[in-house]
């Protein structure tokens, strides 16, 4: 057993807790402030207003669910893929806001909406989300992690079992 094989489940655990923790906290901070969340989504000026408002209501719940499942390690590969995909979409949304010269807060952890010019933090937001995408990709490649409630398959078919 190589060193990586021994370490991998622990790196996986750390990835799960980080990605899951961020998603859970991000969602949790928003579930009781849905009007602000709707405002945050609208301010990206990417979606028609009714759709943006609906997404603003649903996204916090979605983040809580994905975050919680990752922390617990339930269906790790599928949920990590979902979480990583979400982060990827966030990166696109933030990047387009940046490119179009909008002045908004990403609203990732509550807040959001229009901010004063010069108050934007697009680069930090994109780098953080890119890091989280990397963690998600690691989990998709190596979904077997420590302290997960997923069924642990035999080592031999570790690669192709969820």
């Amino acid at each position: 057993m190589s060193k990586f094989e021994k370490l991998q489940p622990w790196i996986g655990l750390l990835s799960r807790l980080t990605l899951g923790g961020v998603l859970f906290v991000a969602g949790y901070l928003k579930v009781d402030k849905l009007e602000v969340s709707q405002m945050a989504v609208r301010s990206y000026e990417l979606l028609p207003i009714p759709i943006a408002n609906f997404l603003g209501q649903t996204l916090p719940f979605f983040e809580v669910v994905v975050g919680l499942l990752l922390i617990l390690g339930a269906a790790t590969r599928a949920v990590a893929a979902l979480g990583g995909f979400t982060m990827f979409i966030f990166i696109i949304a933030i990047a387009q806001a940046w490119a179009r010269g909008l002045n908004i807060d990403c609203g990732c952890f509550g807040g959001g909406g229009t901010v004063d010019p010069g108050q934007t933090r697009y680069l930090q937001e994109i780098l953080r989300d890119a890091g989280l995408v990397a963690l998600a990709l690691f989990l998709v490649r190596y979904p077997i992690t420590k302290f997960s409630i997923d069924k642990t398959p035999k080592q031999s078919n570790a690669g192709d079992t969820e």
Partner: protein
Amino acid sequence: MAQTKKSNGGKDNFTRNLVVAVVVGVALIMLVPTVLSKQGDSTAAIPATASVNDGYGLVFNSELTDVPFIEIYEDFQCPACARFEAISGPYIEELIATKKAKVAFHMLSFLGGESQIAANAAACSADQGKFLEFHKTLYANQPAENTGAWTSQYFATLGIGLGISSSDYDKCVTGQDYMGWVKNVAEEGSKRNINSTPTVLINGKEIDRNTAYGSLADFMLAVEKA
């Protein structure tokens, strides 16, 4: 997953599936009523000066047509709104008093419960013809967000301070008669793509975010040009 049962590797996937189902289920149970409750309620009581066609805003000089139409979207708890009120509030009151503008106040409540209580009380004060005084006094004494300072009792007392003697005001404040209206205002604001407070529109166009919010001269210029 087909070989779940006879796997020798470890736990059964039943636990995992159960957990997934429970977590998703609970989230859906919480989400669906929230989405439905955001639909707005056209039967809710609205203050006499509120206009459904103007997004449930409290409208002054609604009869004027050939003057600039100023729409203000704000939240009583928002510090930037207090700043805007301090800078341009007296001028806006003067425009209303001298009939030089039609003005609609949209009291949003995205900062939370105390914003809703305040918006409800503001609507009650509007029925007593004291909205502008209420508005000014509240911003001048704005506490930190959601610290528990703004209760129905607080607003009942504030009414006395503003010289409101009618018991209707007290009933309206404590009974939260206009809570439905408060939600309608918020819903309408979200439909109108209001993404920040304060947001001020003159004849439907937002004033310059770089200048007109923080400077009376620039705001006056924007009104003059309209």
